[in-house]
């Protein structure tokens, strides 16, 4: 595996070296044509470019892939060679398991990378550049990622302020479908938070601002409605979530008004997100029943605890990766041709001996000579039968399909993996 990522390469390099989706198939074919490689896969995201390949000659493989990277992007290898990392054997297994489980991501636990890896694999598979080894490796990587996701809580913690807001809204309202949000002020933060809420299912967006044009502008973006600033207290009866970020030096909402609103709402809960500095909403409001108020510091604090929690979970995830890596390596070693041939011989020898003994014990009157003849006969039969499969295995062990045949032979003869 050869690659570069957000830690090793600066953005300028990552911008230059990437494989856009359109040309990916052609690139994969070029990669496949490299003489030393038997299988290949290209993972290209905005934070990493990695080429996974199977080869009989690792040293040459690495050189060829480096050359391939340079040639594909019309760069001189020296320009970026220092940002590359090359991994082999077990290290590749660990690496891809960690990538798939989002342990190697910039934001640990983010879910996109798994989808990107699956996409990269699908493309490589349809282009037929993957074989037994990469197929197995990728499938294991996906199942490791699934294990990490279900057995640790690494993925289900919101680490950005807007995501925290959405998570909180879900904790209060269950689901967001059909809920309405009121935006007071029209800052960028407001917009971002509202965007997340809308993506989460919030339906109605109402915007109010002291400047009418800005309210209109933001309302249009969300297909929402703009209302004059003076009228916003009325809409508190209708909406469920309020995001506020005005530049008002004073509180625009106080406990008394909110208590009254809540009574008129028949206690339907209200969730205030106050991201203004200085704050727009009197912190006392939080003490009203069925009202929940979070200011920017609260949100940030939740986000930070979540990040800490993720780090702890990451530890557990690493353990899963380690055990799975061991399993995979055991499987890989079992792919070797020679042990397979040995155990194939042993298996047939065992069968021969057992059957021969049965026959001999049922005909005790045989002479020593006749016994020897029978023994020689069975040995010859087994040898003849085994001759061509073993020759075939030895011949194909150098090909890309070698492992496949080894696998098939093992399954056909039920040879145990030790």
């Amino acid at each position: 595996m050869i690659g570069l990522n957000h830690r090793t390469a600066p953005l300028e390099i990552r911008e230059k070296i990437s494989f856009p989706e359109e040309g990916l198939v052609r690139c994969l074919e070029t990669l496949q044509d490299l003489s030393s490689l038997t299988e290949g896969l290209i993972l290209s995201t905005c934070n990493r470019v990695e080429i996974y390949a199977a080869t009989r000659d690792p040293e040459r493989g690495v050189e060829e892939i480096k050359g391939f990277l340079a040639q594909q992007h019309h760069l001189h290898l020296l320009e970026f060679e220092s940002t590359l990392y090359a991994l082999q054997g077990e290290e590749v297994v660990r690496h891809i398991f960690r990538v798939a489980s989002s342990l190697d991501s910039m934001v640990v636990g983010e879910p996109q990378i798994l989808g990107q890896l699956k996409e990269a694999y699908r493309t490589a598979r349809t282009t037929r550049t993957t074989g037994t080894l990469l197929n197995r490796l990728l499938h294991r990587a996906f199942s490791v990622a699934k294990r990490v996701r279900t057995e640790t809580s690494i993925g289900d913690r919101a680490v950005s302020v807007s995501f925290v807001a959405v998570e909180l809204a879900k904790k209060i309202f269950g689901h967001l479908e059909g809920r309405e949000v009121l935006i007071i002020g029209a800052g960028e933060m407001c917009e971002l938070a509202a965007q997340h809420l809308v993506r989460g299912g919030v339906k109605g967006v109402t915007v109010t601002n002291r400047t009418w044009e800005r309210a209109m502008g933001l309302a249009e973006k969300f297909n929402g409605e703009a209302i004059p600033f003076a009228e916003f207290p009325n809409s508190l009866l209708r909406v469920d979530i309020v995001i506020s970020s005005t530049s008002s030096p004073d509180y625009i909402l106080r406990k008394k008004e909110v208590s009254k609103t809540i009574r008129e709402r028949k206690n339907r809960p209200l969730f205030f997100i106050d991201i203004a500095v200085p704050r727009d909403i009197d912190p006392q409001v939080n003490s009203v029943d069925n009202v929940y108020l979070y200011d920017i510091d609260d949100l940030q604090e939740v986000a930070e605890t979540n990040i800490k929690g993720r780090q702890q979970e990451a530890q557990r995830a690493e353990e899963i990766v380690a055990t799975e890596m061991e399993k995979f390596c055991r499987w890989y070693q079992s792919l070797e041709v020679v042990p397979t041939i040995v155990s194939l011989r042993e298996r047939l020898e065992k069968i021969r001996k057992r059957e021969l003994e049965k026959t001999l014990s049922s005909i005790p009157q045989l002479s020593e000579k006749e016994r020897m003849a029978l023994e020689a006969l069975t040995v010859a039969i087994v040898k003849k039968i085994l001759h061509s499969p073993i020759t075939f295995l030895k011949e194909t062990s150098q090909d890309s399909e070698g492992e496949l045949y080894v696998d098939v032979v093992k399954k056909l003869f039920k040879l145990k993996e030790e």
Partner: protein
Amino acid sequence: MNILFFKITLALYLGGTIAYLIYLLSSQERAAWAGRLLLGLGFVSHCLTLVMRYIEAGHTPVVNLHESLSFFAWAIVGFFLLLRYRYRMDVLGAFISPLALLLVIWAATLPKEILPLPPSLRSYWLPIHVTFAFLGDAIFALAFCAGVTYLIQERLVKSKRIGPLSQRLPSLEVLDEINYRSLTIGFPLLTVGIITGAIWAEYAWGSYWSWDPKETWSLITWLLYAALLHQRLTVGWRGKKAAIMAIVGFGAVLFTFLGVNLLLEGLHSYDGWFR
């Protein structure tokens, strides 16, 4: 036979409770799965216990305290399994299974012999009255658990401690909905329980209502839930207040069921209780 199944039930509920508590503390999906499985198997075994005992006793086994506690726990677990099927919510199991377990453990410490039915109870009203009363009580037990969970979650959200625990607990909205649903199902059941009791009392004791302590306390319970239902529907009581009311209401349920027999003398006191 019924005693054997009862013991199996107890063991399974114990396992289920432990698994669910582990789930609450660790959020391991496998623990929730185990809790569900054990509690489900426990419920099946509990059903068998009741059927066996019915066959062996020849009457609905809700006559002495052992039987009543066992039946109550059975109804609670049954409703929880239905609820979990509807809302896919395992975390509530961590609150409900300990309750059911406690009831079953208590039942286990009591004399379990089948006693001959007192003549006054020999009536087809026995299963009808008692079943409605207990089903209502079991639903209120669910509302109680949802109420406790609501208060915990509300506390966490209000005080801004959004940690792993809050992540695992259901949303406030869902908990409040369970509160409301329980009320709309439990209240009619309780009402029918009281009415059938009154009709039976007319047959058995010659009077619909004789201010026996059990009757008085079920009336108090009924009034509490009626008040909560009324407030919900008119003023829109919900959330914390409704949760607290559900907890208080369940306190009244427990007192009507147990306290009255333990502390007060009355027509509902029969042999086999508390000996």
